[in-house]
């Protein structure tokens, strides 16, 4: 019975079993994607011949739908078969995840982040207008479309070029959210690697790497980024990502170095050496995986940080140039209208706040969950 419900409404069987968390998230995902797919059916079909973004959105839609359905089905089945035992997932990460889940704010943050990225991927289906559609400037355009307050037609109003603010926020998420992710991705890789090498090898190599870290950290972040961006002005997306990553890697390096320093004194390191494993293998296969937990915390907080920095950069007019928009750039463009036409700058500003808040909540939640002294995550 439950199985057949699950085929139509994935998540409902889990919900009926009072697994509220799993159930609601899967059900919401399924219903949301279904609504998007049905109400925007014309765009979905058109997307088959569309550009890259259209195809990505299409792929997201299908993977999401099939994923939700498949997961619910499998979960339901394993639940019936393995009654009374844990069918999967009793690993070392289990305790962390349990502690994380007990922290409601962190779970809320994770939900916001996942929703934001889902929306970002589905933007071509969701946005009511093209981001650069200036209706007032079209041949035979309607001049009254300029600076409209929020209404049913433009739920977040229009800006001075008659562009729809809501649609621009959706498209701007691409730049803002992916910059954060890319910058932190690069800085985690670079900083993690250098920190691990410094911590494990020690001596002169450690000294050189850590002095480089000190030098970079001695500069105020924003000043350093502005200098790099100004040198390469007009800066491409790539330059901005690299500039952001460059200011962040020292923090990752420091953290990982500290972790490795303490891990390499642990007995399993000695045991690995006594069993004949090479130094490289011990560092990358045995020690680094142990540092992944703390690294995730710094990374989550770092993404929020990078989003703010990019917004600041865009606000100063040094952000991504060309046709791209980002949340920071939208705030920049709306600054002259802040008092009367408040919606132009406020909504993108709120989007920044929401994203950064979500990443910080997740970062804090992870830190609490990973901290053994707090007995696994006391909520706020």
């Amino acid at each position: 019975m439950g199985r057949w419900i699950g085929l139509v409404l994935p998540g409902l069987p889990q919900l009926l079993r009072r697994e509220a968390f799993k159930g609601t998230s899967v059900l919401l995902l399924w219903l949301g994607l279904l609504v998007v797919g049905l109400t925007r059916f014309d765009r979905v079909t058109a997307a088959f011949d569309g550009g890259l973004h259209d195809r990505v959105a299409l792929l997201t839609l299908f993977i999401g739908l099939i994923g939700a359905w498949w997961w619910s089905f499998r979960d339901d089945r394993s639940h019936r078969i393995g009654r009374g035992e844990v069918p999967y997932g009793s690993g070392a990460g289990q305790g962390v995840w349990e502690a994380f889940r007990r922290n409601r704010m962190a779970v809320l943050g994770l939900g916001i982040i996942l929703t934001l990225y889902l929306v970002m991927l589905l933007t071509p289906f969701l946005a009511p207008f093209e981001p650069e559609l200036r209706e007032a400037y079209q041949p035979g355009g309607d001049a009254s479309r300029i600076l409209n307050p929020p209404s049913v037609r433009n739920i977040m109003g229009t800006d001075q070029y008659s562009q729809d603010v809501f649609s621009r926020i959706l498209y701007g998420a691409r730049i803002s959210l992916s910059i954060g992710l890319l910058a932190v991705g690069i800085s985690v890789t670079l900083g993690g690697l250098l920190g691990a090498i410094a911590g494990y090898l020690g001596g002169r190599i450690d000294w050189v790497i850590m002095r480089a870290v000190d030098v970079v950290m001695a500069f105020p972040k924003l000043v350093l980024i502005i200098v790099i961006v100004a040198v390469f002005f007009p800066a491409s997306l790539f330059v901005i990502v690299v500039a952001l990553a460059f200011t962040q890697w020292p923090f990752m390096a420091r953290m990982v170095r500290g972790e490795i320093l303490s891990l390499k004194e642990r007995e399993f390191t000695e045991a690995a050496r006594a069993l004949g494993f090479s130094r490289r293998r011990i560092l990358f296969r045995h020690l680094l995986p142990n540092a992944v937990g703390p690294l995730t915390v710094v990374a989550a907080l770092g993404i929020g940080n990078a989003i703010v920095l990019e917004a600041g950069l865009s606000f100063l007019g040094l952000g991504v140039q060309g046709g791209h928009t980002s949340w920071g750039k939208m705030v920049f463009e709306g600054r002259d209208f802040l008092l009367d036409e408040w919606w132009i700058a406020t909504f993108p500003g709120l989007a920044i706040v929401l994203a950064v808040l979500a990443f910080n909540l997740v970062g804090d939640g992870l830190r609490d969950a990973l901290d053994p002294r707090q007995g696994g995550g006391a909520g706020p």
Partner: protein
Amino acid sequence: MSLLEIRNLRTHLAVPGGIARAVDGVDLDLGEGGTVGVVGESGSGKTLLALSILGLPPGGPDQIIDGSSIRYRGEELVGVGNKRLREIRGGEIAMIFQEPMTSLNPVFTVGDQVRESVGLHTSLRGRAGKEEVVRLLGEVGIPDPSARMRDYPHQFSGGMRQRVMIAMALAGKPSLLIADEPTTALDVTIEAQILDLIKETQTRLGMGLLLISHDLRTVSKVCERLVVLYAGRVVESGPTAEVLASPKHPYTRGLMGSRLSMDDRRKSLRPIPGEVPEATSWPRGCRFHPRCGEMIPRCRTREPDLLPLEAAAPDSGGAVGPTTGVRKARCWLLGETGGGA
């Protein structure tokens, strides 16, 4: 040719406050398939001795002083290249450690860790590798190994983890197993099981065994020969039964007096007063003299040599094989030549 032949091994560590001469001229012999126990208090250099054999003293192999010699089946290990040392570690000489709680990597499953060891020292990959892991885990007494190999170390008890460590050590089919206080962190009941397992495995595979312990009783259960270490030096060595029956060095007698025995309940504990001195400044003369109850003036000024005793029972001389060897002790009380006890 003996399996392991250590001559004048000196490992000195640079520590704040000087040079710690933690292992300072140790001789040790171990025949093929033989068992030797190394006994001493904390700070006597037992663990460092074991790590030195593998070329793993904490500050790098440079800390083994020139003139030291460690021969494994005739091959000199002191000064040998890193690549060869890595082949020897795990492949020829394997080691298990004191703390089974922390000797396994917490983020990988037990099966993965044994498998990595299998992959490093054998050509078994894929399915065969997995089967080997199951076989090894079964061999060391893990029940239902094919299911438990998917568990993480924290899901195992201390004794079970030590069994896993032994399985990892056996993966490379070593000819010599060094066990550094393998049962110290375990319950007494588990201790007996693990010792039995080590002994049984050693006999079955014909490995040599170097068992390090602070506990004479542990060693006497398993080892044919005994080496008593004090302050980085061997103070007495010989066949276990003979040493325990008539300990020649006051320190050995002290060690025996500081343990409780079920048999002689009326005997009170007689602990050795004081503790092992700092390795940066060993006492002049005999290194044990400040704690020795039988000190004579000469002990303060000159250090006695480790000399062979006269065979206790001449008629058993023929039975003394390469694995047991002669008895030696380092004490002035035994006379100038060492033989006149």
